[in-house]
């Protein structure tokens, strides 16, 4: 092909023309904010005015135990909620795939629906459920399981439990759908061979299903981790600004609080966001190395 031909030049120009809108959008909405955040990060902000502090925001961050506590809460949610949710999603996927033949579509829809609801709406709903004179307490008291209502949202331990429950309710169905798809790709002959060899259903689940689904589990884990690192709506609305007394404060919510609620310090908030991004990146890298390689063996 003549590389200098006019048709080739036309294709070349046309190609550039096609991707130009995408490049423009990228520059305006991704590159520019990231570059300007580098500018914000080195300044101390107070509303309409700001002063240069260099790395001062990072020095301040190292002494800010409330931020690290918030990050710690993110870690707790990751460590508890994600394995719980993935296990549950796997179980549901296996049951739907092998156990339930009729109404499979209906069950799938019912489990998937929570993840398309509005984050704010479902947080409000869970808040109403868990408040001291809410549905859950009324049910438990009427059936004599409890004698006094538990103040879930005023108790640091129970507040975390409600957040984990809410997250699990919302995202299990979403991950379950991915696992269902992955299960379709597993040859039924493997299971038949296992049956012949005398493996129990549980053994099959742990020794066949899970290893073969490892790529999908990895995908779920990575996306859930980065999502949990950015957790914002549930602690903001369900437990009101990371309450009680910062027990459910998360990194993103703390950043919002610094920028909009108490301080107007956008420089410090930007510096904090960089740390959150860094942590998310490290987690993604670890997971891909750890789970990704094993899947390839």
């Amino acid at each position, binding site marked *: 092909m003549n590389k200098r031909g006019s048709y080739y030049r036309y294709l070349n120009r046309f190609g550039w023309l096609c991707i130009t809108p995408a490049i423009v959008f990228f520059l305006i909405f991704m590159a520019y904010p990231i570059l300007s955040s580098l500018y914000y990060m080195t300044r101390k902000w*107070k*509303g*309409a005015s700001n002063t240069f502090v260099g790395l001062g925001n990072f020095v301040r961050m190292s002494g800010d135990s*409330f931020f690290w506590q918030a990050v710690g809460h993110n870690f707790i949610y990751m460590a508890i909620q994600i394995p719980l949710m993935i296990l549950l999603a796997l179980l549901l996927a296996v049951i739907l795939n092998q156990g339930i033949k009729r109404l499979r579509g209906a069950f799938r829809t019912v489990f998937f629906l929570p993840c398309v609801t509005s984050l704010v709406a479902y947080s409000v709903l869970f808040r109403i459920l868990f408040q*001291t004179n809410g549905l859950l307490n009324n049910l438990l008291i009427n059936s004599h399981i409890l004698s006094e209502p538990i103040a879930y949202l005023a*108790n640091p331990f129970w507040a975390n439990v409600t957040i984990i429950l809410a997250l699990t309710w919302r995202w299990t169905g979403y991950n379950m759908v991915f696992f269902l798809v992955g299960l379709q790709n597993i040859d039924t002959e493997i299971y038949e061979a296992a049956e012949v060899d005398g493996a129990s259903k549980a053994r099959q689940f742990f020794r066949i299903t899970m290893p073969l689904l490892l790529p999908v589990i990895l995908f779920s884990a990575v996306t859930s981790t980065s999502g949990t690192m950015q957790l914002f709506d549930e602690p903001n609305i369900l437990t009101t*600004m990371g*309450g009680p007394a910062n027990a459910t404060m998360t990194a993103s919510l703390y950043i919002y609080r610094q920028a909009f609620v*108490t301080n107007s310090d956008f420089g410090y908030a930007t510096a904090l966001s960089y740390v959150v991004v860094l942590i998310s990146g490290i987690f993604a890298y670890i997971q891909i190395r750890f789970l990704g390689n094993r899947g390839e063996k």
Partner: protein
Amino acid sequence: MKKGFKIALALLVVAAFVCIGVTSCSNKPKPSKVTIWCWDPNFNGYSMKAAEAVYVKTHPEVTFDIVDIPNDQIEPKIEAALQANGAGLPDIALVQDFSIEKFLQNYPKAFADLKAAGIDYSKFAPYKVGPMTVGKSIYGIPFDTGSTGLWLRADYIKKAGLKPEDYQKPMTWAQVIKLGEIVKAKTGKPLFAYESDSFDTLRIMVQSSGGQFFNDKGELDINSDAVKKSLVILKELNDKGLLFMAEGWSNWVNALNNDQSAGFLDAIWMVGTVKSKPENKGKWMVVPTPLLEGVPGAANASNNGGSSWFVFDKAANKKVAIDFLKSVWASDSPDSLAFYNDILKACGAMGTFLPSQSQPNYTAQDDFFYGNQAVFKDFSSWMAKVPTLKYTANYNSMRTAVYNATLLFFQGKYKTVDETLAAASKEYKQTTGQ
């Protein structure tokens, strides 16, 4: 000739239309729409609508868009809009008094100088004008007072075998606690509905004693007798079961309106909320804020909240907005005074516009309350004794830090008051970076 005639005729027609257009423009005022942001449609929204009704009588071309934005969202929204150089801002916004110093300090050019626009501030209560003054400029229109009282359910006091009349006097906290214990023992109702994630009760107590949270330089100083004694009393109330814990505003309102508690400690602007349950007619009475003993400068009066209206300097309809505020909210015309009179009776909005304080509703008896108590007269007289509280720009950070520590103190994580205050100071220092 014909062509010339046609051109001349066309020009004449155009000129005629232009003349008509110009004259009609100068005769009819341009329609404008004033956008107002405020929370609580039963109180602030209602008051604004009443003011709108007064203004459109003489200015029918102005329409109003009163947008209801919840209390905890309005400040982040205003802040975000100010950061975006004013995009999306309304013409008028309601701002809580304790936040205004923060806005004026952080965004000095954001608000319109209303003193320069001709508002006479000598007609407003001085303690409201203070926070909105910066140098020679004054920026807002003071709205409601947050004069507080102890609201009690007379029917529960009667049920406990006591006479409500015995309690219609200034009391100390010790006396109130005793009353609460009897009521709890005989009726099972805690005396106070307590919003567990709110700072208000503690602040009311500290302010009533003349205490402060900041020193004169604006630095945090919470290790005072006033704060410590208030915390001790609050803990005692909690330990004796006299607080009904409710998370969040709507839960708290539910608790006090639906008989889950026998009273609460809060400001005059709760009248609208309390009246929204007509079944409770004749059951509520209001007595002076309890006195914090042992602190010099303490009074049986305090303030909670209260807000003011602010006009944004870059607002699209700034002139109309200022004219509206001036002619309805800051004028002593009969229509304006009648407006202040009306909103007092209808939703308990007691303005701080001094000429309106002699209007009939301010001194009238209110048949919703036990014994037809003239509640507004009482609140108005307590308002005169309220000690001033210094807010500073860091009020929100201090508030969060102190109520987080207070909650943990209640739950037993901190054993002593000193430990609690130390934890609050730590959170304040670390989250504000000071």
